């Protein structure tokens, strides 16, 4: 693992150049990509924000949650229900959804962070299942499994006299890119700050961290809350950009996805979540064109990846070549 903040300004410049480069490539890509891939990448960037949030808790603080779908869904339903029942415009709905996820994470954290290891996985899973079943239970409000679609007007906002329509492909792409850029910059800043160093210290050796005078519980709660807010922001953006809100997003599957994307890309790396999300998306996409039993193909490739890149793509790369990678 690299050392945040200590590696000097030379690697600081390299880090800046790499991440700005990635953003620049994503920006230029919108003029080159065909319509299908433009929409695919919009989705990938939004889901990568979800994975970034997951990675703060799992990759940097060392807490494996199996319930992050509840935070993603908090953002998703925050927007959906906020627009439908509270008449919120898209921007306030987005804030409402993100905030809901943050409050959710903080309150649940007070309970679940009393456990660790396997118990933590089970308790987070349990809370997420309770959330999922609650959505199904209030079928009248949430439309349950079937879900509901946002009206066109609920996905439009006037900014400085211009109309921003989240349903328009290029607008959606740029909104997703802006969200991803902001989330990535924030995560980069966080993990290279002294607070991020404490997160990493907790992952490496919690007891030692405590004996250095840190209240580990408080730091873990902060990590979970930040992680919950980022996941909810992704969920909120997903609702606005794709217009569909359904209970499947709150299911265990979406909690596992976040874990899988982060593991594939590289736990505890900043670009890993994007790489993992994109890789998984295109793996499923390409293999389902060839065969209807595409999950077998995906599974085989995943096993190969784990064999040759045990720390995820970027994690293994960092171990071998690029120690400065944050």
């Amino acid at each position: 693992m690299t050392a945040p903040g200590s590696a000097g300004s030379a690697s600081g410049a390299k880090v800046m150049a790499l991440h700005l480069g990635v953003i620049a490539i994503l920006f230029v890509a919108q003029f080159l990509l065909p319509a299908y891939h433009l929409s695919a990448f919009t989705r990938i960037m939004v889901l990568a924000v979800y994975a970034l949030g997951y990675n703060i808790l799992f990759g940097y603080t060392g807490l494996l949650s199996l319930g992050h779908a509840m935070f993603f869904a908090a953002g998703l339903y925050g927007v959906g229900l906020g627009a439908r029942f509270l008449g919120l415009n898209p921007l306030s709905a987005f804030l409402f959804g993100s905030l809901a996820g943050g409050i959710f994470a903080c309150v649940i954290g007070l309970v679940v962070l009393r456990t660790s290891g396997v118990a933590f996985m089970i308790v987070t899973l349990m809370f997420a299942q309770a959330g999922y079943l609650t959505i199904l239970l209030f079928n009248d409000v949430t439309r349950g499994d079937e879900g509901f679609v946002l009206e066109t007007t609920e996905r439009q906002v006037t900014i400085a006299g211009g109309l921003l329509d989240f349903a328009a492909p290029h607008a959606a792409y740029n909104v997703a890119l802006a969200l991803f850029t902001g989330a990535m910059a924030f995560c980069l800043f966080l993990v290279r700050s002294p607070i991020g160093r404490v997160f990493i210290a907790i992952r490496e050796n919690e007891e030692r961290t405590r004996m250095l005078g840190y209240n580990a519980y408080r730091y873990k709660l902060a990590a979970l809350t930040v992680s919950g807010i980022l996941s909810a922001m992704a969920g909120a953006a997903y609702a606005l950009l794709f217009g569909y809100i359904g209970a499947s997003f709150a299911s265990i599957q979406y909690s596992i996805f976040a874990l899988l994307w982060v593991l594939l890309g590289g736990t505890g790396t900043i670009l890993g979540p994007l790489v993992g999300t994109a890789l998984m998306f295109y793996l499923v996409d390409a293999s389902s064109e060839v065969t209807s039993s595409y999950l077998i193909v995906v599974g085989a490739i995943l096993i190969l990846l784990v064999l040759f890149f045990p720390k995820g793509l970027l994690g293994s790369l960092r171990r071998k070549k690029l120690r400065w990678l944050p």
Partner: protein
Amino acid sequence: MTVDRSPTFLETRGLGRRFGGLTAVDSVDLMLNAGEIRAVIGPNGAGKTTLVSMICGRVPPSAGNILFDGADITRLKPWERVARGIVYTFQITSVFRNLSCFDNVALAAERSLTLQHGLRSAFDTRGLVAPVMTALQRVGLEARRDELAGNLSYGHQRLLEVAMGLALRPKLLILDEPTQGLSEAEIVGFCRLIRDLAGETTILLIEHNMDVVMELAQRITVMADGNILAEGSPAEIMANAEVQRAYLGT
């Protein structure tokens, strides 16, 4: 230290700890003066590590009280004790192996900075470099600042552990078998370091190497079977027949 304080800096009253049926520490009354170097010796299983673990808060006591710097700290959490100046360095080396030496010490220095200046220093990395490098220099590891702690030799890891302790600006520094596994030359350097520190902080040292104990300690506490067997100056302890029978074996 110019601060005026009562001569007794740390005091334990009837401090005890039972693990199930096993009494690790029975009932210990220990008194430490500010600024002294105290060694705790005793055979394996005498309860030395359990005693200091209760003082630093890793292990909650099952009986008794701990008074530090004029306050009862028996119920305080470990991190609250660090804030008051009690710093523990581990017997089993537990540096952060995947972090650089700099980051290991920075974690400690950061904590003492935020304790002094509040959270605003939590995002200021520049103020951190000087105290970190000072601590690394004191133990002679400044040239290895960017090396991963896990790649250091065992002796250097022990020194890094001490540097982390120093960066916390301890009032009471507890060293649990610090010279275990060090080479002769490293032990000489270590003793010099501890003598240097003597004016700044009170030191509680658990040690098996009698040469180190005799050279450094002003007073020695001998433990056996969870109790204090004897206490006195190095010369008194060497002359004590009971201690010789129980521990020194000569």
